[in-house]
């Protein structure tokens, strides 16, 4: 993966960048579709979240990890995680407040489709959590400057970065 190193090994490739620029929005949209459409066909929040994350990862491979990181910097990721998790929990707790059991969608009493909406909201929450966490994980793993870093990491780290190269 040519773009992996946060230390400038990244080599710009026009073909990849163009391809990704075209594909990424599609992947992103497909991810959202899978997230929402889990009720009717295969798919759901988790799969959709993974696809959304994949779109971001594609961008990172195409435009460089640092660039993507800078683009994403800010509260976006953690809002996605905390918001998604909270949405799921609150939908569950809300049912308790309305005198139902935890996650009892029927308690919201919005007719027969209410359950379905509840489920889709939950799927959306999961999607947010998953995409947020996966993107976060990727950047965490890729960055690797630890506060504990003892500074004795061998030099071959960079050499090793290259063969990992061209995947995904």
């Amino acid at each position: 993966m040519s773009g992996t190193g946060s230390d400038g090994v990244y080599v710009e490739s026009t073909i990849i960048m163009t391809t990704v620029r075209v594909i990424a929005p599609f992947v992103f949209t497909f991810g959202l579709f899978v997230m929402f459409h889990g009720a009717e066909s295969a798919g759901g929040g988790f799969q959709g979240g993974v696809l959304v994350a994949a779109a971001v990862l594609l961008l990172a491979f195409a435009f460089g990890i640092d660039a993507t990181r800078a683009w994403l910097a800010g509260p976006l990721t953690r809002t996605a995680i905390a918001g998604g998790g909270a949405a799921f929990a609150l939908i569950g707790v809300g049912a308790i407040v309305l005198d139902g059991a935890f996650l009892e969608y029927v308690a919201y009493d919005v007719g027969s489709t209410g359950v379905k909406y509840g489920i889709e909201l939950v799927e959306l929450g999961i999607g947010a959590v998953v995409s947020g966490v996966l993107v976060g994980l990727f950047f965490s793993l890729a960055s690797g400057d630890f506060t504990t870093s003892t500074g004795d990491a061998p030099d071959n780290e960079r050499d090793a970065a290259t063969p990992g190269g061209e995947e995904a």
Partner: protein
Amino acid sequence: MIDLLATHFNYLAVVALLAIGLYGVTASPNLVKKIIGLNVFQVGIFLFFVTSGFVDGAAPPLLGHGSAPYASPLPHVLILTAIVVGVSLTAVALALVVRIYDAYGTLDEDAIEEVRTYD
């Protein structure tokens, strides 16, 4: 025996995957490959569950999109959850690997052991 092979092939594959995975975890000197082994091991178990929900000629449990028999949805749900758990574990394991490498400069289990005793 042949009959068993025909009707229970999935379970043999389950055992094979479990064996390969466990071997990978215990025998691989490289920490990354241990984690690969762990993933294989878990997939063996997933296969067990999904097989249990399968009925010959069954349609996927998309109600209204096919006709009975449907495969049992429950094992699929369980395995979806288990896959998510698996990938989370893998991510944490890899983070640990990165940190271990940062500290010891190697991912070889025996070499790390040497470094530790040398300390």
